[in-house]
């Protein structure tokens, strides 16, 4: 076991890079299983990165080696909890994937329906249809009822 006074070694940095790169690539997929695998890969890479924040050395057990030769315990404690949390997250996402399969027959993440509606409105050059219905001015004797903007602008467009 060598003393890591010189900081991280190139090999470890490459391992972090590869894990993050592959994790991110999978994260951008649609299948929840792939996303989950991406999360795990990313998690491994980031855990390794956090560990690199402390120096390497002998196991931090007091009495076995002098304190100056020990590896840094603080990032290890952080990574240890992170590892277990990742396990919990994995189980949770798997449950989500199962639920998705159970309900829709696959585990793909679908597009948000309301967002797609807005996109369609934008393609058709329309506005949201909120509050354009209701009674006309004639049913409304005590009111000064302006015609809805959309209808009037359309009508004007037809007249031209």
């Amino acid at each position, binding site marked *: 076991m060598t003393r890591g006074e010189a900081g991280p070694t190139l090999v470890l940095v490459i391992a972090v890079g590869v894990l*993050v*790169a592959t994790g991110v690539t999978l994260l951008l997929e649609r*299948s929840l*299983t792939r996303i989950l695998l991406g999360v795990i*890969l990313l998690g491994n890479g980031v855990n390794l990165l956090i560990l690199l*924040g402390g120096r390497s050395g002998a196991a931090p057990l*007091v009495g076995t080696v002098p304190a100056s030769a020990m590896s840094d315990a603080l*990032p290890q*404690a952080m990574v240890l909890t992170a590892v277990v949390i990742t396990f919990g997250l994995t189980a949770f996402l798997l*449950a989500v994937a199962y639920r998705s399969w159970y309900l829709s027959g696959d585990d793909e993440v679908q597009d948000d329906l309301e967002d797609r509606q807005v996109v369609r409105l934008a393609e058709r050059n329309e506005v949201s249809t909120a509050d354009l219905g209701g009674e006309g001015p004639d049913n409304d004797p005590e009111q000064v009822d302006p015609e809805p903007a959309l209808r009037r602008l359309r009508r004007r467009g037809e007249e031209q």
Partner: protein
Amino acid sequence: MLVLLILHLVAALSAPLLVRRWGPRACLLLALAPAATFGWAVAHTGAVRAGGAVVETYPWVPELQLDVALRVTTLSWLMLLLVGGVGALVLVYSARYFHAGSVGLARFAAVLVAFAGAMVGLVVSDDLLLLYVFWELTTVFSYLLIGHSTERRSSRWAAAQALTVTTLGGLAMLVGFLLLGHHVGSYRWSVVTAAPLPGGGYLVVAVLLVLTGALAKSAVFPFTSWLPVAMAAPTPVSAYLHAAAMVKAGVFLVGLLGPALAPAGPWRPVTVVAGLVTLVAGGWAALRQTDLKLLLAYGTVSQLGLLTVVLGAGTPKAALAGVAMLLAHALFKAALFLVVGILDHSAGSRDLRDLSGVGRSAPVLATVAALAAASMAGVPPLLGFVAKEAVLGAFTGRPVVLAGLVVGSALTVAYSIRFLWGAFASRPGVEVTDVEPPPAAMLVPPALLAVAGFAAGPAAGWLGGLLRPYAELFGPVEEKLALWHGPTAALGLSAVVLAGGVVLHLVRGPLAPALTRLRAPVGGNQGYEWITHRFDRFAIEVTGATQRGALPQYLGTVLVVLVLVPGGAMLLTRPWRTGIAVWDNPTQLVVCVVIAVAALLAVGARRRLTAMLLVGVTGYGTAMMFVLYGAPDVALTQFLVETATIAVFVLVLRRLPERFSARPLRRSRWVRRGIGVAAGLVMAGLALAAAGARREPSVSAAFPDLAVAQGYGRNVVNVTLVDIRAWDTMGEIAVLVVTATGVASLIFERSRTGPRPRRPGPVRSRRDRRTVWLRGGATLHERRRSIVFEVVTRLIFHTVLLFSLFLLFSGHNSPGGGFSGGLVAGLALTVRYLAGGRYELAESAPVGAGTVLGAGLAVSVGSGALGLLLSGQVLESVKINLWLPLVGHFYLVTSLFFDIGVYLVVVGLVLDILRSLGAEVDRHVEAAGEPARGLAVQREGESS
């Protein structure tokens, strides 16, 4: 003054109760609140008459130097009279205007009183920020009042339009106030005006912004459109908000700030131009209306333009004329609105095309209306005449403005006549309208207002004395208000105005085509609609372009930002050190290659199982890296977690399709890979940069000593977890409990508590001597059953559990601890489940997962509390020395109990996962009638 505000608040809060009890009559009681304002103002007449001020200050937010600073001078005194007096009369009127049981009456009454309170606050605020708060309160309350008929689209539209326009103006005004206050150093208006304002470009901007707010509130051009639309409000609201109170707030602000700001750059040009345009165009538009309420609304717009010109002019003469006009307008316009409300009730219409002969059947009403309209037209000897003549007299030196005023006033005369003619005249060809006699309670308020305008004319000299201190803010005042000044130019102009108005009314027939054609610039609502429509479209386009609803796109955006910002910064600064070792230990290279190959293959894998196993390999590789780095605890946990992850994955993958669905387009795949590579490079760069970034010694340098001295343990990592940073761990096990609950709630369709699955019936009779290795095993399908697996499981299960306890107890001094112990125990349960099925799981763990999780959390929290009891600090470790026969002396550390809690939580988590993703999914399979599939059963030909 604070008493008045509190009184309004109390009245507003109690209004719903009062209305529920007494119906509309409760408004009579509520009218006492604005009446109190009126009375207060009357009582303090003496104090402001001599030019003094009534001041009250209460500390509010000292950190912002924001006090409730209240100050009443002549202008605010006048506004208090109007707000209180008209408010009280409108409430009295409302008591009859609304029927018993009207929908939303309780809300109406409460909001109207609250609005009156907000108006009081607005006019008495000395602090500009406080003024802004009340300003926006009036906006909000007016929104509720205009939108009184919530079921009507028009009403909601009008309310939203008023809110949008006035709030935008208000925000501009706030920025203006902040500019002013920042440069002067105080938001207290009396302080700001005490010394000359510091000049500079900011002043121009501030003046423009403040005027934007004031003009928007008063519906002056170019913000006119909301006021006619706001006539969707009930008539009492129109009378109060749109004649006497809210729209006057803008004019009031112009009057309040005028003494200090009028000399500043754009003030006079803006007020004069905007005011004159509004005056003329509003009057022109009023001539076109057939709806009497709309006619009055455009008339109000026109008059507000006039007030803006006069109060914005910033001369003593104009100021005196302006406040007189302010008073006169409130009196006649509120009265006229109330008259229209009565017409609406009694005659059933307020459209002049439907009305005929109303004057004959309702002479008192007609008289009241005639008095008010005459004051509006400026007929002597009413107050309107006095004010109008003062206005004309104040501008004799400025012919262009004067010409505009004369034209506008002539239009005012014309629409005043049109109002009276439309409402009360007998028209040939129109059926005489049936008019019910108006109730006295509704007739009294407008009558009082009209008579006040009538009586104030002859008393103009006395009135002028009261209003004089305001005009003196602009300089010495020579002019006096009077009914008769002698033959002056203003008198001649007044005559011209009256004659012109009459002529305009007489030629209304020939004028009609021009009226219908020439609508700009205040005729319609198109400007507002165009802007809101464009805005809506813009929002749709932006939302549509940025929020496509696709998860990969969102994540991609986040990651690209990660690459560009920290990555770009890194490229610019290059914070890493040169000269970096390739490896500490050649084994690292081997492990790195294994990790890299497995990770790359996992990206390309098409089968779920393959991808999962490859990812598992990277996990084990990472664990090896931990070992080589000197982190045995992390490595142990990582090994265990990786194993458990694979087991859990397999449980779910048996249900999902074997292969991933068809790969999407090639191009997007390369985009993903590009982002991935870039993110990987940035993270690698960060890893390098972080190594060189340390400047201070790590806090963990002291951990080894602390671990022994205060944590009584030699495994520094474990002591860190259970003592030094125990709060982190506490939070983490809480997360685990939540996760476990989440997993269960996603899988279980029913409660997961209740009786656990027991094997159906006895599978073994007592006479049967055959050894049964796992009791649940008999419930499995023959094809799934493996006797060897069952035997091995039976033999090692208890040993493994014992080992997990060893890890738990020895973890304080050597690698191990609650996390790894719990994972080992969880793996033992997993093996038991895999070998014997869900009944076996119930046999081996006859307690609910929730119970285990809860017990674990309780033990951890309890040990923290124990530390509190024994040493006075939560989660503090305490050493307890004990003695047992045979064992001898030994000690326990309280943090061991914390670790036992962690152990239980982890066991509970695994158990919950097995119950959900294992046993419950099994049940789903059986319920669906499919044969339960073994883990090793190949499912060729079944891919998606």
